[in-house]
C-alpha cells in the first residue's frame, strides 16, 4: 500500500504537497508562500517583466476592448434596472480584468462554468449580450447558449456549479478529449461544502479543471476575513493536493498569465489548479444592495485608482496601441450596439402559457397537461366575462 510510504516522507516537499510541480510559475508562487503574482502596476508600468505573459498585441487589444465592453454593458444594466426596465442583477464593475483575463486563456471549445459576476468572461467566450440582458430581465431564454458556445448558464446557488465543472472535466477525460474547464466562484463561495467537494472530486480524478476564485473582498456584506481564517484563498489548494496561486485580479496580465499556465497544466493531464484573483467589487452586490451599510467610502476610494481598466489603457496608450480617440469611438460603438439590443430585449414579454409548461420534462406529464388545461380554461372563462 502506497499510503505508508508517503506518510514516512519527512522532508519538506512543497512541490509534492501542492501537486505535480509541472509549472515553474506554480513553484515560484507556491500556495503557502504568501506571494501574489503581479505584472502591471496600477499605473500601467510593468513591475515584473519576468512574469510577463506571451500575449500578442492583437489579443491584448481584444482583451481590453472586452473589458471595456463588459464595463459598459454592466453600467447600462444597472441604469436600466434603476429605471425599472430590468429586475435585480449583480454588479460587475471592478472585476473585468479577472473575468476577461481568465477567459482569454481558453480555447473556443473549452468549457466555461460561470457563477454570476463574470459577464466579461461569459461574453468573451461567446455568450451574446442579448442573452445577458434576457437573464437580467428574468427570462429563461437568458440561459440558452448559442450553438457551439460551451458555457453553462449563470448559477445562482453559491458554489453549486463547482461540482458541475468537475463533472464536465470527468466527462472530458472519459471521452478522451483535450478540453479544459474554467470554473468561477467568489470568496464567499469557498465556505460552501460544494467548493470542497467539487475540488476534491476534480483532484481525485485528475480532471482538467481550473478553479478561479474572484476574491472581491465581500460576500454581500461579509468581508473576506470573516469568511475564512486562511491567509489566502489560494492556500486552500493544499487541502486537495493541488497547486494554488494568488494573483492580482485587477491586473489583466497577471490573471492571463496564471490562467494560461493553469489551463496548459490541466490540458496536459496534470489535473486541476486553484487560482485566487484578488479584486474588488466596486459597485453594490446587486442592484438591491446598499454597500454603505457595511463598508466605508474611504475603503472604496482606495480601490478606485486600482480600477483594472485604467492600467491596461495606460499600458496601451504608452505602447501606442490605442489612442484616446479610438477609446471614444469604441465607447460610442459599444453604446450603440447595446442600445440596439436593449431596445429589443426590454420589450420582451413573459413566456406564453405553453412555454410555462414546456421543458420541465421532455414531454408533458399528465399533471402538467392538466394544469395547463386548467389555466387555459380559466383564461377562457375570464375572456368570456370580459
Amino acid at each position, binding site marked *: 500500500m502506497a499510503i505508508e510510504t508517503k506518510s514516512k516522507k519527512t522532508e519538506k516537499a512543497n512541490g509534492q504537497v501542492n501537486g505535480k510541480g509541472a509549472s515553474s510559475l506554480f513553484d515560484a508562487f507556491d500556495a503557502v508562500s504568501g506571494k501574489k503574482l503581479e505584472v502591471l502596476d496600477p499605473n500601467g508600468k510593468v513591475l515584473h517583466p519576468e512574469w510577463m505573459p506571451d500575449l500578442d498585441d492583437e489579443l491584448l487589444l481584444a482583451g481590453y476592448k472586452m473589458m471595456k465592453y463588459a464595463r459598459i454593458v454592466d453600467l447600462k444594466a444597472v441604469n436600466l434596472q434603476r429605471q425599472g426596465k430590468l429586475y435585480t442583477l449583480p454588479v460587475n464593475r471592478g472585476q473585468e480584468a479577472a473575468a476577461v483575463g481568465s477567459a482569454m486563456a481558453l480555447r473556443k471549445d473549452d468549457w466555461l462554468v460561470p457563477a454570476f459576476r463574470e459577464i466579461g468572461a461569459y461574453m468573451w467566450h461567446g455568450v451574446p449580450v442579448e442573452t445577458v440582458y434576457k437573464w437580467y430581465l428574468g427570462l429563461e431564454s437568458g440561459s440558452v447558449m448559442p450553438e457551439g458556445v460551451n458555457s453553462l448558464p449563470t448559477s445562482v446557488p453559491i458554489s453549486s456549479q463547482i461540482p458541475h465543472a468537475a463533472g464536465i472535466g470527468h466527462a472530458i477525460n472519459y471521452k478522451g478529449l483535450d478540453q479544459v474547464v474554467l470554473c468561477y466562484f467568489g470568496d464567499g463561495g469557498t*465556505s460552501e461544502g460544494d467548493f470542497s467537494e467539487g475540488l476534491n472530486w476534480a483532484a481525485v480524478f485528475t480532471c482538467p479543471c481550473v478553479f478561479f476564485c474572484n476574491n472581491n473582498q465581500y460576500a454581500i456584506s461579509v468581508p473576506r476575513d470573516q469568511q475564512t481564517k486562511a491567509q489566502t484563498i489560494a492556500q486552500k489548494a493544499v487541502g486537495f493536493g493541488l497547486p494554488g496561486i494568488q494573483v492580482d485580479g485587477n491586473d489583466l496580465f497577471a490573471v492571463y498569465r496564471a490562467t494560461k499556465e493553469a489551463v496548459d497544466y490541466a490540458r496536459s493531464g496534470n489535473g486541476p489548479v486553484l487560482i485566487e484573483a484578488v479584486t474588488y467589487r466596486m459597485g453594490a452586490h446587486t442592484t438591491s444592495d446598499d454597500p454603505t451599510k457595511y463598508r466605508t467610502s474611504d475603503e472604496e476610494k482606495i480601490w478606485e485608482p486600482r480600477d483594472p481598466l485604467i492600467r491596461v489603457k495606460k499600458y496601451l496608450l504608452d505602447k501606442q496601441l490605442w489612442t484616446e480617440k479610438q477609446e471614444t469611438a469604441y465607447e460610442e460603438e459599444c453604446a450603440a450596439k447595446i442600445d440596439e439590443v436593449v431596445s429589443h430585449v426590454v420589450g420582451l414579454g413573459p413566456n406564453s402559457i405553453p412555454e410555462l409548461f414546456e421543458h420541465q420534462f421532455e414531454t408533458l406529464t399528465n399533471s402538467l397537461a392538466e394544469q395547463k388545461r386548467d389555466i387555459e380554461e380559466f383564461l377562457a372563462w375570464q375572456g368570456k366575462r370580459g
Partner: protein
Amino acid sequence: MPVMTMVQALNNALDVKLADDPSVLCFGEDVGVEGGVFRVTEHLQKKHGTKRVFDTPLAESSIIGACVGMSVMGLRPVAEMQFDGFVYPAMNQIITHIARYRYRTRGQRNIPAVIRFPYGGGVKALELHSEAMEAMYGHIPGLKVVIPSTPYDAKGLMISAIEDNDPVIYQEPKRLYRATKQEVPDGLYRIPIGKAKVEKDGTDMTVISYGAMMHVCRKALEFLEKDHISVELIDLRTIYPLDWDTIAESVKKTGRVLVVQEGPKSFGVAAELIATINEKCFEYLEAPPMRLCGNDTIPPLPRSEDLYCPTPERVHYYCRKLADYQI
C-alpha cells in the same frame, strides 16, 4: 399601539426575545452588520451586540449544524436562511439532526431552534428566490412548520416559535413583508402553534390557505361577495401540526372546500388537507374538495412569475366552480 409591517413585526419579535432571554442568538448570512437582505434583523446587532446577533460564513449546512451544538448547550438559536432556495444545502442537517435529536436521545437533548427564511414568489427576484416547499418540511417528522399571513400573527407566532422546545421551520411570506401594516402590540405575546384561524365566517364554502396566498384569497373575497357567495376563510398559520378541528368544523358546516396553495400541486399541502378532510368529514362533503395550486414546474423567472402563482381571479373562478357543483 404601534403600526407595523410584517418585517417590522418580525424584527420586533426578535428584538423582544433577544432582550427577554439571553439564550437566544440570531445569526445567518448578512444578518448582523447588514441587518439581513430584507432588513428583518436590522439594528439588532447594534442593540444586542455581536455575540448575540452575527454574520456567519456562507455555508448553510454549518449554520444549521451549529444550531445542533448550540442547542445541546442550552441556547436557542434563531438561524436565518437567506432565501427559500438556499435552505437545500442544509437539508441533511435539518432532516438527520434538527428533526431527530429529541427522538434519538429519548428526550434528553432537544433542539429549540427556529429556522426562519423568506419564502415564495411575487417580488421579481432571481431564480431560486421564490420557493414554496412547505409540504416538504411538513413531511419531515420532527419539524413544526409555521407560516404567518399578517404582521400581528407574524410576531406572535415568532415568539411562540422561539419559545417552543422543538425545532420550528418559520417561513416568512416575502411578498407580504411590506404589503400591509397592522397594529402590533409592544412586548411579549403569543399566537399558539398548531391553531388555525377562521378569518371570516361564511356558509357556502370553506377556503383554506396560508401565508402569501391568504392575501390573494382576501382579494378574491371581494369578487365573491359581489357574486353573493358566502365564503368561510381559514388561515392555517401552522402547516404541521395541522389544526384539523377548525378545518373539520368549517367543512361540516359548508360541505364545500377549496385549498389555495402557492407551491407545486402534486404532493403539496392541499393534498394532505384533502386527505384529512376525507378522514374527518367525508359524509358532509357536497362537492369534491378542490385545490388551486402552483404548477408542477419550478417557479418561472420573474418575467413570467405572475402566470405561476394563484391569483385572486383564479381563486374566484375556482370558488364559482365549487359553488356550481351539483352531485
